[in-house]
């Protein structure tokens, strides 16, 4: 293509990155059978980088596809295009050699990886749950929701994008079941023998960052420490002893309402 014709394309289309299909096109291959077939193709073509469970891969740098919205494809058509063409300049290569229906089936499968609130009919009340969160449950003292709350636990503003209701219930009743390393507790002894304990804000090969119970931040060089202890359990108490089963359901309903909606 010569420069003159390239300019014409630019002026006429307004966008050279012409997408086929169009942005509005919905997936024509989205039955359960398509999802299953797409899953099989995903395992063979995508799983090597994105992981068998699609949760990303540390070695390849491929992102987790199960958490909320995808950065580079917010629609089915966009996802189709990324799978077909890849993302230029990155390790994400396309599988343009595969037939379009196969790519649509992968789209269908990837869509099943993310949590659809329509799949759940929860027994609890969102409003009552909100009240428990800010009151009896004392959750807001540690957890932030949309800018309000404490910092000693994960920000829950969009927790429903990454946790299913049954997982939220386990988080509440058995907080030690899954503790991300970010929420471990570190106990360090400094060279002078003084102790500091707090949440593991960051730990790398050479340094530590800790937030103590008063939300003070501490920074240490590991070489300067006398000792370091990691506590891999959660500092959060279980609600099993303080809330009734129906209140736990209410709290789950509230937490499962906290999501980043499409387009926001």
């Amino acid at each position, binding site marked *: 293509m010569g420069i003159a014709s390239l300019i014409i394309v630019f002026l006429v289309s307004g966008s050279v990155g012409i997408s086929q299909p169009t942005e509005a096109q919905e997936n024509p291959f989205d039955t359960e059978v398509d999802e299953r077939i797409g899953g099989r193709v995903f395992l063979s073509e995508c799983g*090597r980088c994105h992981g068998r469970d699609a949760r990303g891969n540390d070695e390849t740098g491929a992102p987790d596809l199960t958490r909320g919205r995808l950065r580079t494809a917010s629609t089915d058509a966009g996802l189709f295009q990324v799978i077909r063409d890849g993302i230029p300049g990155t390790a994400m290569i396309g599988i343009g050699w595969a037939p379009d229906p196969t790519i649509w089936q992968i789209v269908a499968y990837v869509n099943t990886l993310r949590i659809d609130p329509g799949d759940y009919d929860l027994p609890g009340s969102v409003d009552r749950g909100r009240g428990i969160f800010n009151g009896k449950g004392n959750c807001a003292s540690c957890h932030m929701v949309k800018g309000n709350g404490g910092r000693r636990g994960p920000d829950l503003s969009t927790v429903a994008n990454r946790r299913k209701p049954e997982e939220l219930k386990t988080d509440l009743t058995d907080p030690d079941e899954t503790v991300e390393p970010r929420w471990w507790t570190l106990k360090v002894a400094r060279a002078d023998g003084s102790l500091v304990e707090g949440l593991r804000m960051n730990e790398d*090969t*050479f340094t530590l960052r800790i937030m103590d119970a008063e939300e003070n931040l501490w920074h240490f060089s590991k070489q300067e420490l006398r000792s370091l202890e990691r506590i891999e359990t959660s500092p959060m108490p279980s609600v099993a002893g303080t809330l009734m089963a129906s209140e736990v359901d209410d709290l789950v309903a509230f937490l499962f309402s906290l999501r980043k909606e499409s387009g926001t």
Partner: protein
Amino acid sequence: MKSRVLVMALVAPVSLLMGQEPSRPSRKNEAIPSSLKPVTWERLRNAAEEPQNWLMYSATLDSQRFSRLDQVRRENVSGLELKWAYQIPQIDRAETVPLVVDGFMFITEAPSNLVAVDAGTGRPYWRYEHELPEDLRICCGRNNRGVAILGETLFMSTLDAHLVAIDARSGSLIWNTKVADHKAGYSKTEAPLAVKDLVVTGIAGGEYGIRGFLDAYHPETGELAWRLYTIPGPGEPGHETWAGDSWKTGGAPTWITGAYDPELNLIYWGTGNPGPDWNGEGRMGDNLYSDSALAINADTGKLEWHFQFTPWDVHDWDAIQVPILADLELNGEARKMMMWANRNAFYYTLDRETGKFLVGKPYAKQTWAEGLDESGRPIRAPGKLPTREGNVVSPPVLGGTNWYSPAYSPRTELFYVNAYDGEQEFFLREEEYREGEQYTGGGAQNVEPIDKYKSAIRALDPRTGDLRWEFEIQPRSSSGLLATAGDLVFGGTVDGYFFALDAESGRELWHVAVGARVHSAPITYSVNGQQLVTIAAGNVVFTFGLD
């Protein structure tokens, strides 16, 4: 605005809209000056004697990654500071190990490009950009790990499974040879190795049901001199170790650079996993020569001996690690050794004349074997194969180590390796071979966050495999290592540190945040009498020196 300016203004955003990343301001290729002297075979053979240069992937033919430079040493390494940085105009993580020749540096860039820069300043001279097809089959990123040089010609692997020869002075293409068909899943990522009057080069594609091989090409013409298939064909010894027709799609690629012993005239090269990776049901047998160290006559390509680390591998534990060659006494007897920390979490010392097993023991957490027998063959632990429901095994797919270059110091007589005590859940599934599609037969997934597992730089005694020291990394490292006569070991981390350790004790002496994953291996060289240390991190090549 004049019409020509208008055209440029319109064309520039077009390239952005098409999804191409903005590149650096265009430079006209400039030939490098005459101070670059031809890199003869004699220079390569004696590369250790010109430590101001870094003439091949692993520095010297014995792959020790040891430099005789000692200007930077334990006493002053804390004074290292940034001298220059070169930004690769691609956002892929760089795996490049540059070459340095007489003050000029050759850096490979994703996807299959090559740039020549001034080794003292980082200023570019020329860039070669290889045109690639759109239908590449690559398992693990748009990687390239470096080039070989012989005479005044550079040799580079490309992702479309070609080998190209490039004029080191001008960056001009001399020849372009198709090594294999990329549409069938073949690709090339490794740095070739110049051996006498040949260029030896491997192949990638172990996740696509290829049949692996190692090739040697004539440097002047690009014609094939010999090819050794890493999976024996019908009638050849070892063919019987593959059930049915499984040998045709059995993998055993050769995707990391090997070593060479001039006295024995043997090339040593590792082979990768058998395919499909995790489902071995259709390829019962030892699957020779997958997951093996091969010793190959450099003139003929004839296989002289082999040592298989993991017979009938079903965990994707490629044996493509860089072989380190060194001569040491063992039990009072002088031995020509080959040192190898394998992805299967065992460390091995072999006799490189015969392939005889001398030493072997785990250097990282492993649960899959009860040990090694007298010949070095693993004694498998029961219940450790991948299953349809998932089965947790150590080491993980990434291994006790992987392709990350180890190093050896003749001063400390220690072998340095980047080790990981991890685990993963391995799965099995059915899969039919279809040409050009991935053919893995399963997969693996993490059980716990990686912060839970121990990662460390470990120093091993090659006479015993015993651990002499370790330096713990948090969370882990995928960096190669460099040892120097300054009694230093350099390495990096996945979260963007570059560091130097005391080669005798493992004590940390210096570190710097380079801001992105170190997924390459450090080199050292000198320009105008100053020792410099270079590492690629993220997509930037950083160079450090003393004030």
